[in-house]
């Protein structure tokens, strides 16, 4: 019945939430590294810390999905051993001055690769979740 649909939607929603969290974290790291590259090339005059808001903000034009959302963390491992945990826990951002241009570029490529995978999975899970939501909506629809 409806309870079963709700439960399955909640499960897919949890997966979607987890993927979205890691995706946003990767986006942040990516954009910070890109800024550092521009700063080194002289394209950017500000320091990283000064530019933080403009680096991390989404474009104004971004159109919202219109759903009620809360910043809920997915369950996070104490010590993670997945590739995502290694990337998010590494010292690239905290030792930025010590990392040479080649090091920055390879860090960026690693992030881009895993971000593409996660965004793809996220799209698929969103489709699954949206199908369950459509089923819920249908139960309410006044024909």
């Amino acid at each position, binding site marked *: 019945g409806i309870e079963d649909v*709700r439960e399955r*939607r909640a499960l897919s*929603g949890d997966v979607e939430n987890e993927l979205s*969290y890691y995706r*946003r*974290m*990767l*986006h*942040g*790291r990516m954009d*910070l590294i890109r800024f550092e590259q521009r700063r080194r090339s002289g394209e950017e005059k500000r320091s*990283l*810390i000064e530019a*933080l*808001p*403009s680096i*991390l*903000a*989404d*474009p*104004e034009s*971004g159109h*919202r*999905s*219109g*759903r*009620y*959302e*809360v*910043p*809920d*963390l997915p369950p*996070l491992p*104490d*010590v*993670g051993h997945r590739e995502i*945990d*290694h990337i998010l*826990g*590494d*010292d690239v*951002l*905290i*030792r*930025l001055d010590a990392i040479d241009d080649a090091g920055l570029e390879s860090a960026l490529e690693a992030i881009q690769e895993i971000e593409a995978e996660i965004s793809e999975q996220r799209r698929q899970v969103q489709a699954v979740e949206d199908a369950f*939501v*459509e089923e*819920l*909506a249908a139960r*309410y*629809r*006044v024909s």
Partner: protein
Amino acid sequence: PADEVSSLWDRFKATGEDRAREALIIQYSPLVKFVAGRVGVGLPRNVDQADLVSYGIFGLIDAIDKFEPDRGFKFETYAINRIKGAILDELRALDWVPRSVRARAREIERSLAELEHRLQRTPSDDELARHMGNSVDELRDALAEISNLGIVALDEVLAPDSSNSLGDMVADSMGAGPEAAFQKEETRRILADAINRLPDRERLVLTLYYYEGLTLAEIGDVLGVTESRVCQIHAKSVMSLRNRMTE
């Protein structure tokens, strides 16, 4: 690699050194991107995404200064709450809701309260408009303008002294909030009761939005109305709830 981060924490807590703090801010700043994206639901044009992020960074810095690494809690969990709180606090402190809209909202709320007291039920748009000496279209335009300010603005306009967002409280009362623990049992019961006394369509909009998690467009589809109409109904229901919470 993860040890680098934990030794950075040790170094910062031991020395309070600015450079260590700055490195921690940069390391965890993507958390602010995550929170700002979720909290800024439907904010209007005059609130800059970059502003939300800078408010959030203050919350992050606060969290970094106050966090105790050896307590065994995850920093992310601690930081998320401070970041969200900082963004909401700052939004409320800003005077970004136009005075005229704020005044309009107060006027509608007052009329709603008077009529609800007299009729012992939520008035229809027609009854409310007549009571205010407006046409239904004028009333709905006003509701649209208020709801265009976004859900956070409804909080700001209607519950500026509350430390919880009204949306979170409504969701919590329906058993679907982010943390069911934050609301006093008494408050949750009053709110749940107030929701149950709303007319069917108002209650449905709140249920679909906060409990079933549909988008505004999907709700419009279910009800057979425009998304903008859904926003107006949502604004009116929230005002009605607020009246019942404060009577």
